[in-house]
């Protein structure tokens, strides 16, 4: 693999000096990149400051989008598209949410907790019941019961609709390669798209409110539903399907009796993923007037008040954990359900009984007010660690962010474009390179060049830090099983949490600056990177490791000469993932002072005159995401349904 360094056999003594062995010696591998960088540096020095595209709030695309908004506003009640489709969708979805919400609110709080616990008992026994019940009880203890129920209702509505659309599509895609090929690019874009980006269009078409929030959430949570379902259906053993067909089963029979049951566990995973995605999105959707916990988090963000956010944040995390365990428990194969009906029934009955005894609303005296002590702690932390956090922030800002941002914003646009093209070509090939270039130019045409460069700066810095941290932790985990065992539950928990939660500690430590967004992104993106790296290194075949060790490699040599090269694909995939996640977070970071496109998006909801800019910035983040993805995709596509080879034999 790596040992291809051409160790030439002992050169014959005294080769004729006049005749070079090869007229054109192969250049060492580093020469090309070095020359490339040198050329770029030269061009930069010569053309610096020319052909930059400074930001203008009144750029033509923004004004055009403002006009579009005004037109939609004026014609919302006349245009048939709205009259007969969009408004109906809005009403239908809004109605569904109202129904779900009314249903959940109609349950007294002890009943809701007990029913959840009972469901947990049915699905997975005592432990799941405990986790689910405690999770839901925590809403009351944290003092956010009503808001949690709103969030739950919104999540359930969005998940229901997502599955309604996603599962059939997924099954279809799993069975038809053509469908799969058709929807994969769309799903790619949906997954790369930072959550913030589609809030603008949502407001335009569906206005603010739960309906619009539900649709936004669906866009975010449908891709995993489709993708994982498709994968599940596709992975069903072809022999089992063939066996079924060979016995004369119709397509429908095979689907029902073979595909779906055999894919059940993985489909449950799809449902679970959908719920997790929806949970993290309903929080962000609070920006467009989604009810529930998100509202508290936004309030905390806009008041820089961790004490306000924390109960809501914890409630979301607990809701996530409870739902996760509940759903995953149903996936366990052949659980002895029947014996559990009794216990679950008793539990449910007890809850309903209690609701006649206990007060209708969760009593305040049973709440545990964590706000004030947390605020105190945060205040203490801010003053006690001030020097440290300030130093970290300043070093990162002055040492990394500012120079890079200067470089990018003062370079001529064509130089940046050229660099992107060359880089993408080298890493991923011609087609992705031109896609990346196209995206970059489109960003320029949208009038968002400068802000995109700012966002790009933040993303690049965050990605570098993420990869460094991810590699270090991943390698450590792969090497030391005991450390890995310690780290794994943390990673699990981290991946259940919605993105917003990560802004919390970042905000508490660093206030509102660009570095806050960098810090939050790193914390957000590190867990999956660590996991991919760890799995990649562990995936190196044991025999290869043994072979390397038996030839006397040090652990360091083993790492650099065997494990890294062989885990290359996993590591590149980790980089790709890290970039996509970082971008999403940096954009959300617009709320905490990250500037750039994220701030434009926030502005777009905030100021009527900035609507066009916000909308365009949303589009630009998507373009930026696609660009970064294409540059790094040379690695490997993210887990997508694999092509199956035709079986001949």
């Amino acid at each position, binding site marked *: 693999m790596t040992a291809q360094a051409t160790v030439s056999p002992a050169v014959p003594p005294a080769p004729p000096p006049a005749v070079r062995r090869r007229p054109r010696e192969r250049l060492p591998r580093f020469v090309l990149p070095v020359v490339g960088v040198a050329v770029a540096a030269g061009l930069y020095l010569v053309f610096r400051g020319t052909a930059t595209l400074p930001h203008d709030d*009144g750029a033509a695309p923004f004004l055009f989008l403002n006009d579009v908004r005004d037109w939609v506003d004026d014609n919302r009640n006349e245009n048939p598209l709205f*009259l*007969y489709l969009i408004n109906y969708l809005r009403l239908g979805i809004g109605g569904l949410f109202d129904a779900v919400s009314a249903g959940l609110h109609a349950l007294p709080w002890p009943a809701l907790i007990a029913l959840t616990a009972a469901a947990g008992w049915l699905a997975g026994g005592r432990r799941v019941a405990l986790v689910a019940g405690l999770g839901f009880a925590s809403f009351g203890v944290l003092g956010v019961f009503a808001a949690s129920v709103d969030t739950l209702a919104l999540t359930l509505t969005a998940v229901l609709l997502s599955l309604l659309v996603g599962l*059939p599509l997924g099954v279809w895609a799993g069975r038809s390669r053509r469908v799969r090929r058709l929807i994969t690019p769309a799903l790619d874009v949906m997954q790369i798209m930072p959550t913030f980006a589609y809030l603008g269009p949502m407001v335009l078409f569906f206005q*603010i409110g739960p309906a619009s929030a539900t649709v936004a959430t669906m866009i975010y949570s449908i891709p995993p539903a489709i993708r994982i379902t498709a994968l599940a259906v596709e992975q069903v053993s072809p022999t089992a399907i063939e066996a079924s067909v060979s016995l004369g089963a119709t397509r429908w029979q095979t689907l029902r009796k073979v595909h779906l049951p055999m894919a059940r566990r993985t489909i449950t995973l799809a449902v679970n993923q959908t719920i997790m995605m929806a949970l993290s999105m309903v929080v962000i959707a609070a920006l467009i007037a989604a009810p529930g916990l998100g509202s508290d988090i936004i309030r905390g963000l806009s008041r820089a008040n961790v004490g306000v956010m924390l109960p809501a944040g914890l409630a979301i995390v607990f809701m996530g954990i409870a739902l996760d365990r509940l759903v995953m428990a149903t996936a366990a194969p052949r659980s002895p359900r029947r014996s559990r009906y009794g216990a679950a029934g008793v539990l449910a009955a007890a809850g309903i009984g209690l609701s006649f005894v206990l007060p209708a609303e969760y009593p305040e005296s049973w709440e545990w007010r964590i706000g004030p002590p947390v605020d105190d702690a945060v205040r203490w932390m801010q003053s006690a660690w001030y020097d440290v956090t300030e130093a970290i922030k300043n070093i990162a*800002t002055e040492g990394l962010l500012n120079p890079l941002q200067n470089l990018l914003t003062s370079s001529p646009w064509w130089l940046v474009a050229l660099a992107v093209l060359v880089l993408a070509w080298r890493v991923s090939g011609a087609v992705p390179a031109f896609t990346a270039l196209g995206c970059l130019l489109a960003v320029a045409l949208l009038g968002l060049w400068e802000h995109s460069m700012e966002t790009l700066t933040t993303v690049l810095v965050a990605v570098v830090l993420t990869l460094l941290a991810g590699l270090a932790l991943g390698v450590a985990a792969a090497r030391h099983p005991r450390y890995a065992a310690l780290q794994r539950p943390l990673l699990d928990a981290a991946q259940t949490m919605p993105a917003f939660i990560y802004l919390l500690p970042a905000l508490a430590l660093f206030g509102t600056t660009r570095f806050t967004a960098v810090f939050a992104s790193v914390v957000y993106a590190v867990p999956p990177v660590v996991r991919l790296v760890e799995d990649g290194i562990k995936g190196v075949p044991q025999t290869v490791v043994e072979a390397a060790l038996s030839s006397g490699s040090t652990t360091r040599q083993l790492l650099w000469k065997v494990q890294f090269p062989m885990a290359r694909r996993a590591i590149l995939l980790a980089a790709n993932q890290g970039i996509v996640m970082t971008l999403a977070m940096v954009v959300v970071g617009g709320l905490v002072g990250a500037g750039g496109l994220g701030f434009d998006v926030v502005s777009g909801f905030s100021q009527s005159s900035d609507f066009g800019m916000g909308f365009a910035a949303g589009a630009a983040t998507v373009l930026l995401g696609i660009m970064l993805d294409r540059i790094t995709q040379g690695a490997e596509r993210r887990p997508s349904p694999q092509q199956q080879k035709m079986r001949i034999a």
Partner: protein
Amino acid sequence: MRIGSRVRLLAGVLTLGLAVTACGGARVADGTNSTAQPSPGGASAPAAAGTVRLAVNPWVGYEASAAVVAHLLKDKLGYTVELKELKEQVSWEGFETGEVDVIIENWGHDDLKKKFIEEKKVAVEAGSTGNKGVIGWYVPQWMVDKYPGITDYRNLNKYAELFKTSESGGKGQLLFGDPSYVSNEEAIIKNLKLNYKVVTGGSEAALIQSATQAQEQQKALLFYFWDPHWLFSRTKLARVNLPPYTEGCDTDPKKVACDYAELDLDKIVSKRFADSGGKAYQLVKNFTWTNEDQNAVANDITNNGMSAEDAAKKWIDANPAKWQAWLPA
């Protein structure tokens, strides 16, 4: 089978939706069939009097007013109140969709008034809050003592170096608050040719924290702020004099080169609420108090560890005469 029933359910929901709304197409907020009915959307204990949706904009003064009004609506009139954490712009849109009934403290927004009150006719004005509001640029008092003339905008370029930060890209920094706040900053800087850059702190809290630190630790700071605010009673701040406001100098947002006008802060309510809001509407309409009242409540919320509700209750207990005058006869 599972898939089948789902498809049927979807079809059912769609059909139902179509059936419910007759065949004239669905209009947003045409009063009869939107989700905006003043119904107890999902409250557990439906209050007899109905529900009021009160927008809460992101600054503590607003929160104080909203908390007091909400408390009175609940406690004295028996309404259910939904407090909606929304930015100004979004709150206005809420009038149209039915998400919002009341904005309790509106800062100007002539463009939005034109659109939602005059053109769409989904909102109406509900009178002054009694608060006088003015936005401006401020520096901590110590800077005035040390750098004479700093409060004159013509000298700002001279001192730009002082205000430089890691975020301001070589220029002086003008710290701004929440991105949703009323703002002419970019235009003013451009039109007065100031060597400054607007840096958005993201929140009122960021402004307060920076201002406090700047005064205490003698750090340079130029920032966007507004009155009424409790901060003035705690920290000495000085306002920078921009070219004085004249009638119409801020009509074209791109050409603004003058200071902000002093605004008579007012209340805006949705048309539907005005028509059918009953006693709740009367209370909102009658609500009016002074900057001192608001600052007292805001101060309790921010600095005395009280929740907005507790702070409102404290003020209500202490000032019965004032609020009793607001209650509908």
